Every structure is written in structure tokens, then in C-alpha cells.
């Protein structure tokens, strides 16, 4: 009765672990399907979403807010998908996108660079040297991505509940460890944690609906009482209020919605 996010570098066997954990616990397993869902829901090319969640923002993108828009879409699709619980999500940034939900077990699967290089060289038919550079480049890209958007290093183990290195521990061992952790009391869904999940879904849906027009807004929700935090002054807030009013009727789970101008957004805001 929980949600498991498995974060992984390329060729770290994370995908395999995730699928086996899902099979073992009889959970659903999702990854790229989230991007498809977001692409459908918000009518954006999937490739743009892939780039948004994979590539570090370029200098130009840092000025614009397109990437944040796409990530808001992906996050909204992800939280809507995992709200029903009993699910394993493996893919990029799951641990960051589902921050603050107590019943999410955040796992990182890592592997030796040599092992990963060998696997890539074998699969792609390239030299070991090239494979190693490709993996290092990919890891660097991930690092920049998380740092530019969330200000954290994905290799920082404190972001996760569990970091498993697949090397001396086999994939099966890793699966056992993850499944065992998932059954612990701490990760069980409670009514309070599910309430937080529902609030996250509401906040993410509202954010996704507003982000294209108002990229600077942050949204928080507590028991369905949604607050849209804006830093762009009272004049702009009026437009946000208008847009928000329209959402009140269409987004489920909203009890009350207000636009607060200035003053910082709380930690849990999306």
C-alpha cells in the first residue's frame, strides 16, 4: 500500500529492478507512459516533454520558462497516475516530483561505472571508451538538470530512503530489499498521507493549467483549500484570479481557491 519511485542512471539495471518489484508486490509499473499521458492531456509533442525532463536547460531556456511548463505537465500527469497507490514509478525525477508525500518510498539504484559502460558498449556496439564517455555525459546532464530546476544533486543520497548498488548485491537482492522496505509501517498509506496526495494532485493540476500563461505562480493546497502564490503584483493577480475562477469549476477537489500576492510560497507549493 504505497508508492515506490526508482531513480536510476542509464544502464544501472534500475528498470529491471522496478519491473520485478512491481511484479513481486503486484503493483503497477509506470515510466515513459507518464510522458504519453502528459502529451495527450496537454497536447504537447512527447519529444518536447522528453527533452524537458532529460536535458539540462540551455542558456536560452533558462531565460524562458518552457521547460518548467513541460515539467508541470509531466508532474500533473504523474501525480494523477500514482494517486491511486500501489505503483512503482521508475524514471526521471520521481523522487523530486512526489516530494512531501509520506507513503512514497524513494529508491535510487546505482551501479559501477565500469559495469554500466560494459553494458552500453555491448548493447550499442561501441568501444568501451566511447560508452564510458557517453554515460559520464549522460550523468552530467542529469546532474545539471536537477541542479538547475531543484537545486539538488541527484547523487546526494539524502534525497532517497534507500540507495542500492547493484554489483555485489544482485538484481534479485535489490528487489527483495526494496520490497521489504515498501512493506514497512513508515511507507504505508494513511488517510493523512492520502489527503496530502490528493492535495498534491489538486495543486499540480491547477499549476499545469496556469503555468503556460503565468509561469511564475506557485500553487499549494491543504484539504482542498488552494492558494495560488504570485510574485508579480496586484495588477497581474487580477488576471490570475480570473483564470483561477474558471478552474474552480473544472478541477475536482477544490474547496476554496485564493490568489495570494507577494509573501513567499510555503515549502510544499508546486
Amino acid at each position, binding site marked *: 500500500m504505497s508508492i515506490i519511485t526508482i531513480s536510476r542512471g542509464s544502464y544501472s539495471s534500475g528498470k529491471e529492478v522496478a519491473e520485478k518489484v512491481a511484479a513481486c508486490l503486484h503493483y503497477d509499473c509506470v515510466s515513459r507512459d507518464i510522458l504519453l499521458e502528459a502529451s495527450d492531456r496537454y497536447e504537447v509533442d512527447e519529444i518536447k516533454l522528453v527533452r524537458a525532463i532529460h536535458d539540462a536547460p540551455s542558456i536560452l531556456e533558462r531565460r524562458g520558462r518552457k521547460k518548467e511548463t513541460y515539467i508541470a505537465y509531466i508532474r500533473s500527469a504523474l501525480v494523477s497516475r500514482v494517486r491511486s497507490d500501489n505503483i512503482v514509478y521508475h524514471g526521471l525525477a520521481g523522487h523530486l516530483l512526489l516530494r512531501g508525500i509520506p507513503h512514497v518510498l524513494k529508491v535510487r539504484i546505482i551501479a559501477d561505472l565500469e559495469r554500466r559502460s560494459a553494458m552500453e558498449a555491448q548493447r550499442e556496439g561501441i568501444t568501451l571508451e566511447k560508452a564510458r564517455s557517453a554515460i559520464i555525459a549522460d550523468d552530467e546532464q542529469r546532474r545539471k538538470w536537477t541542479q538547475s530546476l531543484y537545486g539538488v544533486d541527484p547523487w546526494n543520497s539524502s534525497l532517497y530512503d534507500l540507495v542500492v548498488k547493484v554489483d555485489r548485491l544482485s538484481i534479485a537482492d535489490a528487489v527483495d530489499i526494496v520490497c521489504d522496505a515498501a512493506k514497512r509501517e513508515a511507507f504505508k498509506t494513511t488517510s493523512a498521507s492520502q489527503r496530502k496526495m490528493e492535495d498534491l494532485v489538486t495543486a499540480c493540476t491547477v499549476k499545469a493549467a496556469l503555468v503556460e500563461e503565468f509561469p511564475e505562480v506557485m500553487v499549494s493546497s491543504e484539504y482542498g483549500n488552494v492558494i495560488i502564490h504570485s510574485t508579480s503584483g496586484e495588477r497581474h493577480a*487580477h488576471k490570475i484570479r480570473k483564470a483561477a475562477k474558471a478552474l474552480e469549476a473544472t478541477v475536482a477537489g477544490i*474547496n476554496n481557491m485564493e490568489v495570494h500576492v507577494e509573501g513567499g510560497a510555503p515549502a510544499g507549493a508546486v
Partner: protein
Amino acid sequence: MKPLTFEMIMVMSIIGIAVFLFIVEWVRVDVVAILVMVGLPLLGLVTPKEAFVGLSSNAVVSIIAVIIIGAGLDRTGVVNRMVAPLLKIAGNSASRIVIAICLAIAAISSFMQNVGAAALFLPAVQRVSRTLKISISRLLMPIGFSAILGGTVTLVGSSPLILLNDLLVPFNLKPFGLFDVTPVGLALVGSGIAIFILLGRFILPKGESESGETSSPAKSEDISEMIGETFELHTPPDFTLYRDPVTVDGLRRRYLVNVIAMVAPPDFKILNPEPDLEIRSDVDIALCGKEKDIRRMAEQEGMLLKEHVEVFKEELADQSSGTVEAVVPPRSPIVGKTINEADIHRRFGATPLAIYREGETYRSDISDMDLRVGDALLLHGPWKRLQGLQKERTLLLTTPIDVELVRPEKAILATAWLAVSLVMILVFKIQLSVCLMTGAVGMVVTRVLSIDEAYQSVDWRTIFLLGGLIPLGIATEKTGTAAWIAHTVLSAIGMVQPIVLLAVIGILATVFSLVISNVGATVLLVPLVVNMALAAGADPRMAALVVGLATSNSFILPTHQVNALYMGPGHYRSVDFMKAGSIISINFLVVMIAMIYLFY
């Protein structure tokens, strides 16, 4: 005709100087009146006795009494009770609200001083504007004008009309009855409101709503919906079992409802409990909130929602506690702090219900919002504690509170004394000032309000303005100046039909009332037009009535007391009054002349 004398020139010079000072406002209008009051006997134009006779006149005493009666009705909540159902009837339509409030203020101002009625309505209108998001400038002008127009409905409705019978005495003309002017007054009120409803959008300033956009039509929210109402609930016996503690703040965060009273077992009542206080099982709690939120909470938490407030009936009665609007003033020590940091709850024992800022009402997470200058906090608490808040002046209370002054239990007595006055006027035909003063003193004797409160309620500016201009009228009359101007104007316009004469008088009175006070204009013009009418063969009483009415036709400039009162809060400029006021003024003249011609 008497030739122009030196004394007449002196009187006309004094009138000229007074008018000039009224316009330039180098000194306040009431000071001008006092200067006139003192200047006239010094120049030998009136006797010392005549100079101060104004202060003891029927008119002035009547106005003092009307103000006291108005204060009594206000303090006992009679006025509020009259306003509340109007808002319910009006629902959410802007036009209906304008009609309802205009009719109400016209009705009230037909029996009390116009500016008093206008002042009484100001807080209510401001509240309506904010709650229903109707621009204040679209509301105040029609309402202010209705207050002035309402003054023409009865003979006690406005100072010029109260004064009228006094001014007829020297001419031995038959005095007017209380309701003699009513048909004309009703037609004026009706046509005035109709103009605002039909042409309001063209003649009223667009008025920026707080958010910078043109005001939107009324929203479905009504006043009580802004903060909700008070409900009493009972928690189930198993309320605290198998769950985390439920606190006052917890309920607020979850359901946006505010616990304003609760019972701590066994039977200790806590008013405005602090946020971290735990709600116990099987106890009564009183909450302020929107009904839908309260019902949702009752359902989800298994609480019993009572039909009426029972346990906290006394503590939450209107005379014991209530909700006030407190504005954060500039330089207040709490600017930039949150409600939590300012410790408002603990310091004043009042529960913050909502923050009203720039046209928006905030209910979520208000404890952590940084307070800004101009923010209005809606606070609930016992009046005594709120008085402490008022004294400290960290926040300015826009809703006046005075525990001793709010006496809803005296409402019947207040209404009864108003009725006594009216019966004396209507049935026994006793002099107006005596009737009204009976009502006023009756209110004091029966403790509807104390004598000090009665004194405080009287606006001495108005009294001296009236008292000071009356000797000017006496001087104008005594020296033959009025007669001289009358004859001069009359010979200038030649022999005309009575209706044309009345129209000319109407225009003259309107122009006079724009530059000098309506009372001053009446005092000056009545002797003059009576002479004019006598000379032209028209009914002198009608001529005097035209003056009495047309001196209320003061809409084009913000010189009328009501217009002056509403100019600031309505964010009006003089040009706004010129635009809407000229149309109302023209309508006033046309309707008045037509009605007088048809009815008398």
C-alpha cells in the same frame, strides 16, 4: 419701490462676501456663518437679540432634536435592522441594490437630517460595495442624491423645509403641513432613481474596482457569505478517539471555519480560543464560517449541527460580541508582520476571520500573510476586548463599537419615541421643534441614549451654519434688500406667467444653493420670492415652496453636506458631480414645477 440705500448695499456686500468665502473656503463655512452672525449687529444691520435668534429658532432646535432622534435609532440598531432586509431583497443585482438602498435612504432622510442618513448609510454602503464587488463610485452618488431628494418628501426632511414655515410667519402666510410636499418629493425621488438606473452607466464615473478593472456586476456573494455566520455544533462522544488531536487551527485549516467559542470539560466556556487548543469529545462549540463549510465539517467529523445557537446564546449575542473590521494604519507596528507574529489572537482575545485586501477577501492561511497598510482584518470577539484593541490603535476599527452604546433591547423604545414625535406633529399639530425635542428628550429619559451621547451626536457645524445665516435673512428682510432684489429681478424679467415665475425662482434657488448653503439660500430667497410672487400675482406660498424644495437641488457641485460627505469615500471629482448632477438638477426643476403646477 424703496430706493437703494446704504444699508441695502451693506447687506448685499455681506451676502457677496459670504458667498465668496463659501466658494473659496478660506475659512470653514460654519465660521463664515458665525462671522456673519457677529458682523451684522456690529454694523447695526440687526439688533443684538436678532443676531442670535437663529440659535433658538424652531428650525435649529428641530434639527438638533432630529439629530438626537437619529442617533437614538442608530444606537439601538433600528437603522441597521431596516437596512438588513433590504439587502436580502435586493439579492445580487447591482440595480436592485441601488434601488433598494436609494429607497431606504430616501425614506429615512425624509424624516431625519439628510447628512445624518447619509452618514448612517456610509459604512453599510462601503460594505456592500466590497462584498458584492460593485464600485463604490457607482453606489454612493445615487445613494447620496437619494438622501438629498428624500429630504423633500416631508416637511421635516431637510433643513430648508424645516425652516420654511418659520420664514412664512412674517408674511402671515398659512404654514405647510408635514406631508404637503410629499407628492412632489416622491416624484423627485422616483425620477432621480430612475435616471440613475437607466442612465447610470453613462453619467456615473466608471470607477475603478480595487483590482484596477472596471467594476463587475454584483457577485452572488452577499455580506454574510464573506465571513459566514455563527453556528453551534456538538462534538460526538468518540470525537478524540483513534485520531490525532483536532485543534482550533486544525479545523480552520481544513474547513476554513473559525471556532469562536467552545466548552472545555466539564462546563467551562472559552471565548475565542487560541489556535492550538484541542477540541474535546462531547462538547459544544460555536463556529463562524460559511454554511457549506460548516455542513461539510459536521458531516465529515460526525458533529451535530444545531438549529440555533443555544449554549453560547448569551456570549454571542449582538450586545456582547461581534465582528469588526480593523484596518492596518500607516506606521502601525504590525505592518510587515503576520497575524501570528503580531500575536493578535493572544493580545486581544479576538479571532481573525479573514483579511480583506485590494478588493479580495482572503480566508486561507491568513495567519501567515504579511500585513500591509490598508489591509482590513475581520475580527470576532467580545466587544470589551475589541474596545481594548480600539484603544491601543495598532489597528483602526472602521466599525464603531461601543459596548454601552449598542442597545438593541431599547429598539422598541427608540421607535416608540419616534412615533410619539410623529403623532404629536401629525395629530396634535404642535410646533415641530417641541414635538421633535419631546422625542429626543424621551429617548434620553428612557435611556435609549445618555444625555452626553445626545450632545455628542449633534453636529455643531450644522447648527452654527444654520444659526448664523438666519440673522442674514432677517437683515435682508428688515433693510428692504430682499424686496429691492425682488423688484429688480421682477422688473428685469417683466410680467410673466406664474409658472414661468416659479421656474425662474426654481433656477434662482438652485443657483443660490450651489454657492451658499441650502439653509442660507432659503433664508435669503424666501422673503425675496414671496415679495416677487405677490407683485406678480402668483401664489406666494408656492413660490416659497419652490425655494424650500429647489434649495435641495444641490447636485452640480459638491457643496451640499451630503455630497461633501460622499466625495472622498466615493473617489469623486467635481466634474463627476457636474456630469451626473446637472442631469439630476434639470430633472429636479422640471419634475418639481410640473408637480406643483399639477397638484397645487
